[in-house]
């Protein structure tokens, strides 16, 4: 490539952030606020806050298919249709699978959104801290490698990101789920309150139930409006009431005057310089024009989502890094994990027929992990937490089979019975053989090779699912529920959209890709702070931890840069 000096200067920044989702947004915010000139690259289109949430204020009858997908959409989105998130209500936020194929050695559901904000626009917003129980499990049971950090290393960064993002929740003083800097909690409904008190009484507080800790604002916060209880979050929030790149980190980064955001910028590879043993920048494919452009920087933050980031590192080969950038350990691409879920129990509540709720709460309840801790011992490793909630059935309630007519219609307009459900989210172990690699036999729309994914859940997860059902039924029973039914609807890796691992942190460069600062052991000016860095996944929803790790890594990176170490 013949770049003249002027073009090089124009394309040079202090830092490049690859990706604009939850962790990329945080990297851009932190680095720009510390005075760095930052280029944030996003492979997809721009989505402007509020203006581009084109369905957010639509009424139910304004959707042509009332949420259902057309046959056309099913054809172009064969992966995205495998579960509920892709709907007519938010269809523009999910990828056309035909444009970006991948190879499923075993079934892996890969849900993706190519646009500024990434999955921060569609995420579930549940925000839980990891505890030392989680940071120590790998070391204790020998699965995976030891985390290079402990809770004390991350605690102040959790504080820091929670204060900015705005997390509503209730402090519980539960050791396995540390409390945070909470905005006021959302309210439980009367059935949930009753279930909570009966479970906690029955198990003498060795199991607890709390309101979901969620990145929805219960009070105005940081110039953003509070939740309006519409429960339409995944369309984008015109009130800015949940944390997303657009509502939160992007405006902060823009306000510094130090940010350049470039959409339609698919990063092909990270450019490596063997003299300095550092990255000098990235080569981008303009995803509209397919033009190749190089950008340069002193630091590169890789935040392209778990598998997107690992793909980029695997695709960044050189004589010195023939198997992918910083992959001397051979661990890059390995230890892929996801939560397994869709398994639990539900029942019917009696005695609350004269009670109802007002507003649509985009949040449920949470029962943090209690297995394999505090003297509770199971025949599998690690554990699970529950999400769930109670509600009164609406027009979709059960009526007699295929019943119709005026009476049925009127019955369907009355609030039905109260039901309460608990669904487990289980930890999966880091298995070396659950891996991804580059498959050069296929090409995507942009001429890039594709990712092959070879991942499965195993016996430990399978065993855990029995308890996920039985414990849920047991708790609902203790809470006085009737007609309790357990369910296991099956769970394929990828479905939880909590895919993590494949570029893990660790103290030993021989067995890990990143050090305790999310810095590549072998390429000191490259940091990876999205889900790919995780040595284990606990059973909590992970995004809050990505935020904390990113803010911490950015702080370290700038300190090192100022010291002249990178």
């Amino acid at each position, binding site marked *: 490539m013949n770049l003249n000096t002027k073009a090089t200067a124009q394309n040079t920044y202090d830092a490049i952030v690859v990706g604009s989702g939850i962790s990329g947004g945080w990297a851009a915010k932190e680095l720009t606020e510390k005075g760095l000139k930052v280029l944030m690259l996003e492979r997809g289109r721009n989505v402007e806050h509020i203006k581009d949430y084109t369905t957010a204020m639509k009424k139910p*009858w304004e959707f042509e*298919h009332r949420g259902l997908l057309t046959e056309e959409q099913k054809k172009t989105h064969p992966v995205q249709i495998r579960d509920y998130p892709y709907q007519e209500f938010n269809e523009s936020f999910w990828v056309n699978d035909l444009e970006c194929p991948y190879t499923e050695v075993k*079934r892996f559901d890969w849900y993706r959104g190519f646009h500024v904000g990434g999955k921060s626009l569609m995420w579930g917003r549940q925000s839980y801290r990891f505890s030392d129980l989680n940071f120590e499990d790998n070391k204790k049971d020998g699965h995976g490698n030891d985390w290079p950090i402990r809770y004390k290393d991350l605690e102040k960064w959790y504080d820091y990101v929670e204060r900015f993002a705005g997390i509503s929740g209730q402090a519980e003083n539960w050791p396995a789920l540390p409390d945070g800097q909470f905005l006021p909690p959302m309210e439980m409904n009367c059935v949930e309150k009753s279930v909570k008190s009966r479970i906690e009484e029955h198990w003498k507080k060795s199991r607890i139930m709390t309101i979901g800790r969620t990145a929805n604002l219960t009070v105005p916060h940081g110039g953003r409006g509070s939740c309006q209880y519409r429960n339409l979050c995944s369309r984008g929030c015109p009130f800015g009431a949940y944390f997303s790149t657009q509502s939160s980190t992007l405006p902060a980064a823009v306000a510094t005057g130090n940010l350049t955001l470039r959409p339609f910028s698919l990063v092909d590879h990270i450019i490596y310089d063997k003299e300095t043993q550092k990255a000098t920048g990235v080569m981008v494919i303009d995803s509209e024009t397919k033009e190749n452009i190089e950008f340069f920087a002193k630091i590169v933050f890789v935040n392209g989502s778990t598998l997107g980031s690992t793909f980029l590192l695997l695709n960044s080969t050189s004589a010195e890094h023939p198997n992918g950038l910083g992959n001397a350990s051979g661990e890059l691409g390995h230890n892929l994990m996801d939560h*397994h879920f869709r398994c639990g129990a539900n029942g019917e509540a009696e005695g609350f027929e004269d009670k109802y709720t007002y507003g649509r709460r985009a949040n449920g309840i949470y029962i943090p992990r209690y297995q394999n801790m505090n003297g509770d011992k199971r025949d599998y490793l690690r554990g699970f937490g529950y999400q769930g909630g109670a509600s009164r059935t*609406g027009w979709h309630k059960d009526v007699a089979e295929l019943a119709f007519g005026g009476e049925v*219609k009127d019955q369907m*307009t009355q609030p039905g019975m109260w039901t309460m459900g608990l669904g487990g989210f289980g930890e999966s172990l880091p298995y070396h053989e659950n891996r991804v690699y580059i498959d050069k036999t296929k090409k995507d729309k942009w001429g890039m090779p594709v990712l092959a994914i070879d991942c499965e859940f195993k016996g430990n997860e399978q065993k855990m699912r029995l308890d996920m059902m039985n414990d849920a039924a047991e708790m609902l029973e203790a809470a006085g529920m009737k007609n309790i039914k357990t369910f296991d609807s099956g769970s394929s890796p990828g479905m939880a959209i909590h895919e993590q691992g494949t570029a893990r942190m660790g103290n030993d460069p021989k067995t890990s890709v990143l050090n305790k600062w999310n810095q590549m052991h072998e390429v000191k000016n490259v940091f990876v702070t999205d889900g790919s860095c995780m040595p284990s996944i606990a059973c909590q929803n992970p995004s809050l931890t990505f935020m904390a790790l990113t803010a911490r890594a950015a702080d370290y990176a700038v300190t090192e840069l100022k010291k002249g170490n990178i």
Partner: protein
Amino acid sequence: MDRREAVKNFAFLMGGALSATTIGVFLDGCTSPSANKGSNLFSEDQNLIITEVADVIIPTTKTPGAKAAGVGPFIAQMVKECYPEDAQKAFVKGLEDLEDRSKKEYGSSFLKISAKEREQLLGKLRDETVASQKAEAAKTAASGKPDLKLEKPLAAPNRYAKNTPYFFAIARDLTMLGYFTSEIGATQALEYVQIPGRYDGCVDLKPGQRVYS
């Protein structure tokens, strides 16, 4: 557990994060053969019959029924755009059979027979559909390949797994979905609050309180 049940359970799991509308959305769907998007899938009379069928399923009571809410054209559009060819065929065949049967059993077109007769005829169709669905479920269970007995541990079933399309079941599902998400259904039969602004977890149920749409 059938798909409907699985979906409901999943709704629990999301802690009420799925709206009733969304759940309704899951109750149908198949994949593969391309949809016939032609505007001539239904004859003019068939379009009228669809409208009348919907209005028997959800008639006017103290609130307007399916016809007033425009559910007929909605069903026709949905069958054209959101259903695979086999379901479209089954639906057209169902309309033809309904008309034949109306003429045979009541001596006139479905469009001409009385409201009472329409209700009776659809009642028979409903009973037959329920019986067929049950027989099919029993057969599937007996043949030892139930959908959810998974070959691979943990694998999730196909959301759009092939199942036999029944005219009456499709018509009823789309009537319910179309009506309760229509402006009339959502605001008059149900209560629609676009921006609740707050969440009250425990309020006294008012007499005559309708479900929130």
